[in-house]
């Protein structure tokens, strides 16, 4: 199934269809992750791959063009058609040859299961008091890595803002109704359904955020789900309404605040006499301190991810609106 959808990405010309197929592909791989007993990853892939990524790609599409240019066949020499295929097959054969040395699938004796991981599985429950091992590794044992990830996301958000420009000159009055979504405003069914759905999605996001220690979930997933709820709102009710609730300026501050919560937790540990991000010192009981630290860090991640995702969406769609207006200006 996965291979089939991926293959169809090659042959389909219509970019809109390619993006839809890609969303399907992501959803399928999320199901695959679930069957491999990785619920945290499946949750992330489902919300990102099938939710956010296609929306962003569609946003780009709205700004560029719909069809992938049919390449003139005659112009294309045999060499330029075959060369990629040859390169790809050679690399593929080499990689498959390399897998022959790998331990078999699900083999308990594989090296990956026998070094640092048994320690995490046996000790993390006592050391952090958190049942979800994925969360405790993410926020505590590998806290530095996750800090880095949060900064990468933050930096990407900044990069997109820098490339596509800020939404207005700061007056905040330059937002018009997005032409394409204006049609959606008059669909009563969509309105009623999304009115019911959006609070539920928000509630679910909060549940994923704060219950992440006990069940699959955590800051990354919660942030994305939260952002999806707002994007749905913006799509159905128009960008104007969404700006009223969550202005892009506030979102920009939120991005910074999220990263600061994470970094600040580390600094707080330093002040209290521990190492950077050593949560044990946050409370009299190390276990309790770990708990507080992990919740704070997850909160920081959640705020960063949610605000960056919303900023990305607003930036792309705001750009689309501006270019629509520019065209109208030229015509009139």
């Amino acid at each position, binding site marked *: 199934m996965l291979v089939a959808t*991926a293959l169809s*990405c090659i042959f389909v010309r219509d970019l809109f269809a390619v993006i839809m197929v890609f969303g399907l592909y992501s959803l399928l791989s999320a199901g695959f992750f679930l069957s491999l007993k990785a619920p945290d990853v499946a949750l992330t892939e489902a919300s990102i791959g099938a939710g956010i990524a296609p929306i962003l790609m569609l946003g780009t599409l709205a700004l560029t063009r719909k069809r992938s240019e049919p390449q003139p066949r005659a112009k294309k020499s045999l060499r330029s058609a075959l060369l990629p295929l040859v390169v790809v097959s050679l690399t593929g054969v080499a990689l498959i040859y390399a897998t022959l040395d790998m331990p078999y699938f699900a083999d308990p004796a594989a090296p990956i299961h026998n070094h640092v991981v048994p320690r995490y599985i046996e000790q993390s429950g006592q050391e952090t008091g958190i049942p979800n091992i994925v969360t405790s590794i993410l926020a505590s044992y590998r806290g530095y890595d996750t800090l880095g990830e949060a900064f990468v996301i933050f930096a990407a958000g900044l990069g997109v803002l820098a490339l596509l420009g800020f939404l207005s000159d700061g007056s905040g009055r330059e937002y018009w109704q997005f032409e394409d979504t204006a049609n959606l405003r008059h669909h009563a069914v969509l309105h009623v359904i999304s009115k019911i759905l959006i609070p539920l999605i928000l509630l679910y996001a909060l549940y994923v955020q704060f219950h992440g220690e006990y069940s699959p979930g955590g800051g990354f997933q919660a942030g994305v789900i939260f952002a999806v709820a707002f994007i749905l709102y913006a799509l159905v009710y128009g960008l104007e309404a969404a700006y009223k609730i969550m202005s892009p300026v506030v979102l920009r501050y939120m991005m910074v605040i999220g990263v600061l919560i994470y970094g600040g937790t580390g600094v707080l540990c330093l002040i209290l006499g521990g190492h950077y991000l050593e949560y044990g010192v946050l409370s009299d009981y190390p276990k309790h301190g770990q708990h507080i630290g992990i919740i704070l860090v997850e909160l920081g991640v959640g705020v960063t991810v949610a605000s960056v995702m919303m900023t990305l969406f607003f930036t792309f769609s705001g750009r689309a609106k501006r270019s629509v207006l520019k065209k109208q200006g030229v015509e009139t």
Partner: protein
Amino acid sequence: MTLVFGLFNYWVAMVLMMIGFYILIASGNLIKKIIGLNIFQTSVFILYISMGKIKGGAVPILTEGTEIYTNPLPHVLILTAIVVGVATTALALALVVRIKEAYGSIEEDDIHEKDGSL
């Protein structure tokens, strides 16, 4: 036969990776290239998660009476990689938008033509 079943998941990951790679180098459209890159990326995720699977392992959430858990380390790595992946994809898409504005096209050939390169 054990060879085939033992390594099947990795082979699927390799095939997906090569499909992504092919889209990346053979297609001229920049958005399609990004989709290819994303497929490539997902295949790496599948490779990692497959390696983390353990026979009879439960979901890595501590519960009483469970002995074997699936390896949580790849889950952590991939979970963050997915989110970072979408952030970098967004950056790439933003670049595409700017290229479109500068060159009026998102086809590689047109851009080369305008630049006079190749």
